């Protein structure tokens, strides 16, 4: 096949060059530049290359500065002597001076992680326990994955193995559009559409609950599962498929005996990236999970997640207060969770590539 050169100067039927014979050979700009390169242009190139290198490491800079700046706002929690923010709190401190529960006590990491009492704006006894919020995030995420994993991986198998041509293209476009719907629109759908549906269908007292948020999160995380899952199935060498077909296996036998075992790392990565997406999602769960700090007993209980708490309360917490810093500490917690999930997913993907 003659390779047609795709630059503006050398296109058209008159220029079917052999790829090895030099793409730039006919490019007049190249010749001119070679003729005389001044010191300015050489220096310019040095500057541009330095700029490219700087941009190349920008991702590292940004990730570190995200961690640094979020941590920086949280860290005084551990060193600062707590002050009463308002007069009422100051009064409460005096009132409680005799018993051993001051209104504004020293922050303890143990309480933060293992207490389910989240009363950040209490007048008499402020408590910052995020256990209920962690359980809220976990319950919504786990249920979302229970819904999303079969659908996401099933769709990935279908797109990769069972359909071709037009159907495949259409499905991929649908998946892409589904991924593009903004999270606030999902939240709005949860609030206005799913809320009455869940109430009527399951006779639940409130439609804004774990189930509602989980369905939204499932729909939001399915696209990434499908695309990563499909990629990893595609990465299985065709010789595996050919060998299976030669033995008389049907597509389905091929999928569950050969392809799924061969692509299991990539499929795991797809699920993990879906989990990462679900844990970090903010607006949809803020609007659809009912916003009650609560350890849920059933999937019809309202909960509140870590992300939703930050979104809802940061606007009200006064700058530099203990409450404000605790919200940043929740941010550090979220950052760490998603970092671990994403890096594990990357390791899984890397595992298949090396094979």
């Amino acid at each position, binding site marked *: 096949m003659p390779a047609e050169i795709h630059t503006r100067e050398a296109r058209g039927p008159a220029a079917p060059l052999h790829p090895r014979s030099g793409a730039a050979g006919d490019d007049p700009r190249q010749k001119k530049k070679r003729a005389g390169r001044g010191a300015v242009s050489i220096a310019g*190139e040095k500057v541009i290359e330095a700029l490219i290198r700087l941009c190349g490491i920008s991702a590292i800079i940004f990730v570190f500065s995200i961690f640094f700046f979020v941590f920086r706002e949280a860290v005084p929690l551990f060193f600062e002597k707590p002050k009463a923010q308002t007069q009422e709190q100051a009064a409460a401190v005096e009132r409680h001076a005799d018993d051993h529960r001051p209104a504004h006590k020293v922050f303890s990491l143990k309480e933060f992680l293992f207490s389910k009492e989240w009363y950040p704006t209490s007048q008499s006894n402020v408590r910052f326990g995020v256990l209920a919020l962690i359980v809220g995030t976990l319950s919504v995420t786990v249920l979302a994955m229970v819904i999303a994993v079969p659908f996401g991986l099933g769709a990935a198998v279908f797109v990769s193995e069972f359909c071709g041509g037009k159907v495949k293209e259409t499905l991929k476009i649908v998946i892409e559009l589904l991924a*593009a719907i*903004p999270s606030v629109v999902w939240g709005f759908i949860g609030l206005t559409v799913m809320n009455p549906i869940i109430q009527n269908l399951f006779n639940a007292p409130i439609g804004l609950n774990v189930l509602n948020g989980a369905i939204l999160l499932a729909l939001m995380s399915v696209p990434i599962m499908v695309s990563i899952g499909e990629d990893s199935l595609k990465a299985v060498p065709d010789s595996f498929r050919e060998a299976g077909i030669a033995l008389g296996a049907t597509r389905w036998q091929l999928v569950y005996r050969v392809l799924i075992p061969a692509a299991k790392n990539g499929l795991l990565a797809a699920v993990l990236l879906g989990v990462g997406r679900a844990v970090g999602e903010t607006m949809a769960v803020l609007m659809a999970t009912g916003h009650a700090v609560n350890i849920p007993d059933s999937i019809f209980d309202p909960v509140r997640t870590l992300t939703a708490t930050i979104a809802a309360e940061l606007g009200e917490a006064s700058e530099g207060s203990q409450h404000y810093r605790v919200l940043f500490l929740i941010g550090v917690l979220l950052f760490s969770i998603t*970092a671990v999930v994403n890096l594990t997913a990357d390791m899984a993907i890397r595992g298949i590539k090396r094979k």
Partner: protein
Amino acid sequence: MFVETPFVRKKHRRELLAKCVFGLMAGAMVVPLIMIVSYLVYQGAPLISWEFLTTNPVGGMRRGGIWSALLGTIWLVGVSLLIAAPIGVLAAVYLNEYAKDNWFNRVINLAVINLAGVPSIVHALFGLGAFVLFAGIGRSVLAASLTLAIMTLPVIIASTREALASVPRSFREACWNVGATRWQTIRSIVLPNSISGILTGVILQVSRAAGETAPIMFTGAVFFRNIEAGNLFAYSLKEQCMALSMHLYTVTTQVTGAPKPLPYAIAVVLLATVLLVNATAIVLRVYLRSRKKW
């Protein structure tokens, strides 16, 4: 000779069953997309008009249009694009053209993956801590756009890298052989040949930035601001602005007594913007693939 034994029949029945089940799972994604879009359009359509788009909200955001929010989104997206596009494209050039396969560049790759996975609300905290407070920019269009830019950077990096990687190595080798330097090769061969792929990435960045709410909530978006209707430059970098996504959130959760179609209409405008932008990217990609000859 092919003999249909019970074993073979069972095998084919299972095959058909599997195909149907997987097909239904894939179809389960098409249905909600169509249902959601058509329901929102059905509910919101009566309100949408040219006037709705070009007048400011009035009466505590219960009446009037969405001009100030629409313009705010355009500003945020525009400014974040101006920041993210050059950095993202150059970063992708570095990763694809300069980087060797060593530990340092693996760290960069991990950083890009990590950056893509940071929750949007953590980006909001970062924007607040770094730009609003530390850099002293204050809550403004600029601070919100910077936050959005960093958040959407991985989108541009990923698709630009893909576009650059699809340019055959022989093109580069040919260019080096006639004496061009690395940067000359990139500028006159690699970038022109991957421009459509880069554009796709930029377009996807726009769609992502337009839909985000959490990162701008605390860095520059406000519930309400009255601006001159029809003036495209009614905002400035140093001021706070409204945004469509934020406006939808406000009208749904904070404003009581808004007419029922209003939030639907806002959702439709937001969704239409994002989906149209995405559709442009898809069309561009299909066109690009049909033209590609190597």
